């Protein structure tokens, strides 16, 4: 597992039914592009988050493919429509096979 990886998300605790809410997500990750070389001139292997998804009660909200040009600590901000109370599940897929996930509940106010 890549070191120092920690997912963070910010979701409002509650919203009115049918409201559009803003979700912010960030994962600390070095996003090594595979283009750099170390001191001895050997290429540093690519190690990035290659996919990010968000689901709400099992339904896909966003599904992102990440490429090596994306810089360190990738940050996503997007809107989602909330019709009912439920759980947002966020998942990040690492090149090395690791999967990081976290979830947040939202209530209907």
């Amino acid at each position: 597992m890549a070191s120092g990886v920690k997912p963070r998300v910010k979701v409002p605790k509650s919203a009115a039914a049918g409201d559009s809410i803003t979700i912010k997500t960030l994962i600390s990750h070095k996003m090594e592009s595979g283009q750099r070389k170390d001191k001895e001139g050997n290429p540093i292997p690519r190690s990035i988050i290659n996919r990010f998804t968000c689901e709400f009660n099992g339904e896909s909200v966003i599904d992102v493919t990440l490429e090596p040009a994306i810089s360190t600590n990738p940050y996503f901000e997007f809107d989602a429509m909330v019709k009912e109370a439920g759980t947002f599940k966020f998942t990040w897929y690492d090149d090395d096979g690791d999967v990081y996930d976290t979830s947040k509940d939202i209530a209907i106010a």
Partner: protein
Amino acid sequence: MRKMMTSVAAMTAAIALAAGAASAGQEDNLVVNEEIEIVVRTDAPAHMENVDTIYSGWTFRSDETQALQMDDFDNPGMIFVDMGREVFDAAAGSEGKSCASCHESPENLKGVKAVYPKWNDQAEEVYTIEMQINECRTDRMGAEKLKYNGGDMTNLVALLASVSRGMPVNVAIDGPAQSTWEWGKELYYSRTGQLELSCANCHEDNYDNMIRADHLSQGQINGFPAYRLKNAKLNTVHDRFKGCVRDTRAETYAPASPEFVALELYLSSRGNGLSVEGPSVRN
């Protein structure tokens, strides 16, 4: 002729626009997380002879950069604060202690960052917060010193700054610290390098002017450690000094050198009254 007149008028408008852009955000106020009020402009402390009002570096940045510092989730520096918490809780050295063993939580150290650098009676010299942390590590924890401007140290300093945000910088410049302070002042006004520039030439005489593409600030250090967008990491104040001295085309002092400690004390005192802001976001 008429066409020429129009283009002159258009140019004047463009110049006015450019001038407006240079001071964009200068009037804005900073509130972090809609909770912590940060003083970004105030009356200069009495010892400053040539400046009436002091401004945080935040006021010189673009709206987009300013916005990053208004919410901890958007502030990339807070990632490093979280990493600092891990260092704070990690036991090290022969005593098996961590920072948390004595201080419990970083929040108990609220206000500490605001008064450093500070005279240390036992050592009989001015201590920066990094020197104090390393003394704790060697004398109380029986641990190795952290590298002065290394990642773990900078993250710890960012953590201590973050819990003091909103408190006024208030370093003591009288008493035993006075001679170090005066040395720092001398360094501030000494021209160095092939370009023969002192700190004051840019940051006192020309703040708010453009130096090529850069908008010169007053060089306040209340926001350090600072997350810089250009290198996507926290930057220590001594590394920033080094960069500035290098830009005058001089051989620089080393981070942790007595010269930079004296300069840090003097510069901190120029910001007495502004709020602790670290980790700030700058370009």
